């Protein structure tokens, strides 16, 4: 009997606790919950924490300035969740946030986690802005709730294709991809744009995201004497690839996407990394319109910026700006305002196209010089 009573008591306690999480009336101010999801554990935890801090900084600033909706004071509260960069966990925490009653979400960090979660937000009508998911599929599913503030892979690939022909003067181009959604998507767009700009694609080769030996495909490419080799894939493949290009005595330039534009690439490729080119969506921090001011405010509170926190900050700002315009935190009401976004953020001017992608996003090119990535130049996406 005692066990039975205890169980009912626990159920009651859970119910009461559950109520506590709902938006509540508190005097004349009320609490509005906004979700943030990124990997807070695992190898990408530092990036995930960075996103969380970026979103939190935006919230804290807005709360400190005083935020009102419908004439009532509103306190914004951040609900931060860990998806461990895992698609399955991502859907679980997305559902959890929906159940807790968040009115919007900044996240997730990885495309692989963002895409499955986006269906849950869409089903429940919760607006979502990803700071850093770049896979095309995220916004091409036709979900009205899915937005992002970073240039996507297709836009990046298209900028690169045009850039290598028009700016680097490469006429014969060889393209390799790792057959992942990311690598292939990037390489396909790059190929289209390079051809449109008048370049000739002399070789299109493939590898996998597990491979370390590229001698055979590189030898075949070498026989076609390209001016440039483009690789759509990640740094564990890009690094041995550039090493093997040097081993084969290839003179062609090497260009990678953001998967290769990492410190790890230089660490793995060593001296052979010298001269390699790679791109990353967006602007380098010191070239962002609000970069230095953001850096000062962020670092005073959280320490060094890792990577995407300015984007998480902007995503949060854009979300709340839409609430302001709608004068409501009701997801259905302010979702209608998101397409009209025209916001000067830290990372640049943010406007969305019909799919929820950012228009006219920037892509920055980097080159390894003296064992470090140095900024070459920033190109605006035509799309």
């Amino acid at each position, binding site marked *: 009997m005692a066990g039975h009573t205890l169980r009912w008591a626990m159920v009651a306690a859970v119910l009461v606790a559950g109520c506590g999480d709902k938006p509540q009336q508190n005097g004349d101010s009320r609490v509005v919950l906004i979700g943030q999801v990124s990997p807070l554990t695992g*190898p990408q935890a530092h990036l995930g924490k960075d996103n969380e801090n970026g979103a939190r900084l935006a919230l804290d600033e807005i709360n400190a300035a005083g935020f009102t909706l419908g004439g009532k004071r509103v306190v914004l509260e951040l609900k931060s969740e860990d998806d461990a960069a895992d698609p399955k966990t991502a859907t679980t925490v997305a559902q959890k946030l929906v159940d807790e009653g968040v009115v919007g979400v900044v996240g997730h960090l990885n495309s692989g986690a963002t895409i499955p979660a986006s269906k849950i937000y869409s089903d429940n009508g919760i607006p979502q802005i990803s700071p850093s998911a770049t896979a095309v599929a995220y916004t091409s599913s036709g979900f009205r709730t899915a937005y992002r503030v970073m240039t996507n892979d297709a836009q990046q690939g298209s900028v690169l294709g045009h850039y290598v022909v028009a700016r680097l003067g490469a006429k014969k181009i060889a393209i390799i991809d790792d*057959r992942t959604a990311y690598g292939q998507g990037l390489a396909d767009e790059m190929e289209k744009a390079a051809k449109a700009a008048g370049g000739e694609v002399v*070789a*299109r*080769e*493939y*590898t*996998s995201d*597990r491979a*370390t*030996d590229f*001698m*055979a*495909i590189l*030898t*075949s490419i*070498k*026989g076609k004497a390209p001016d440039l080799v483009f690789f759509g894939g990640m*740094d*564990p493949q890009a*690094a*041995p690839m550039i*090493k093997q290009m040097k*081993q*084969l*005595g290839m003179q062609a330039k090497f260009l990678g996407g953001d998967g290769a534009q990492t410190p*790890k690439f230089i*660490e*793995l*490729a*060593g*001296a052979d990394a010298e001269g390699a080119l790679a791109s990353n969506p967006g602007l380098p921090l010191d070239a962002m319109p609000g970069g230095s001011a953001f850096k000062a405010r962020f670092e005073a509170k959280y320490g060094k910026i890792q990577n995407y926190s300015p984007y998480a900050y902007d995503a949060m700002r854009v979300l709340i700006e839409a609430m302001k315009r709608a004068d409501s935190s009701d997801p259905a009401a302010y979702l209608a305002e998101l397409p009209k976004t025209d916001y000067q953020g830290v990372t640049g001017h943010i406007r969305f196209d019909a799919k929820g992608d950012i228009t006219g996003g920037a892509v920055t090119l980097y080159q390894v010089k003296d064992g470090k990535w140095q900024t070459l130049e920033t190109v605006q996406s035509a799309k």
Partner: protein
Amino acid sequence: MDIFLQQLINGLVLGSVYALVALGYTMVYGILELINFAHGEITMMGAMVALAAIGALALAAPGLPGVLVLGAGLVVAIPVCVALGLLIERVAYRPLRHAPRLAPLITAIGVSIILQNVAMLIWGKQYIPFPAVLPQGRHALFGANITDVQIAILLLTMGIMLLLILMVQKTRLGRAMRATAQSRQVASLMGVDVNRVIAATFVIGSALAAVAGVMVSAYYGLAHYYMGFLLGLKAFSAAVLGGIGNLGGAMLGGLLLGLIESFGAGYIGDLTGGFLGSHYQDVFAFFVLIAVLVFRPCGLLGTRVVERA
């Protein structure tokens, strides 16, 4: 022509690495009729341990010549891998020697997963750069390029294979191994200490795996906790292609698989006019494997009963 020669070099280097790992599979299979799926992971452990030793040495005594540093890495990696091989045999295979043949196969897979996870816990999930300790020289050869590392890999594997054949054919241990391979029971009746012979097989196989792991890492310049899986799978296929249980077969199978992959990836796109690209390189390799097995179920050099190992 220069492209052809380059692909030949690529294929031979890749193939000799496969061959070295394939020997480990084939020796154990020859004697125990067991597919030691943990062998690929021992290769990975060899690379990781050597890497750790090289790192420690670089801190303790910087400025040593590269060959010496790599040698020191091997000197540490080989005993660790040998001990690991012996331990696996003792813990995971010997208690199951009279069990149905599926049981040790499952423990082999289990051991392989355990080793991967242990390596992940110790060294993390990241790719680790393998320092460029070997001379990075490059030589022109009729329009193709061959590097010092590639020459070293070719010479080392040839030497090891030669020694292994001599050992199996000419020494007492080799004779005991051949006898055990033919019939464990009869060999033990003739006074052969079967357990010792099996242990010796694991010792030799694991030492070869350690050498192969260090070579692969030095060649590609990186190591990773998962690197043993794919390498093990390819080497196992090479052993089957050549005829599993047959030493010469493992060498032939390894070299052949390396060459098929290299020429497949290099020429398949051009030969089919871009219809099939280089992502069909593995399909191509395994198609050859299936074709060989259809016509010669025991592999190229495999025979149904006669001597194994």
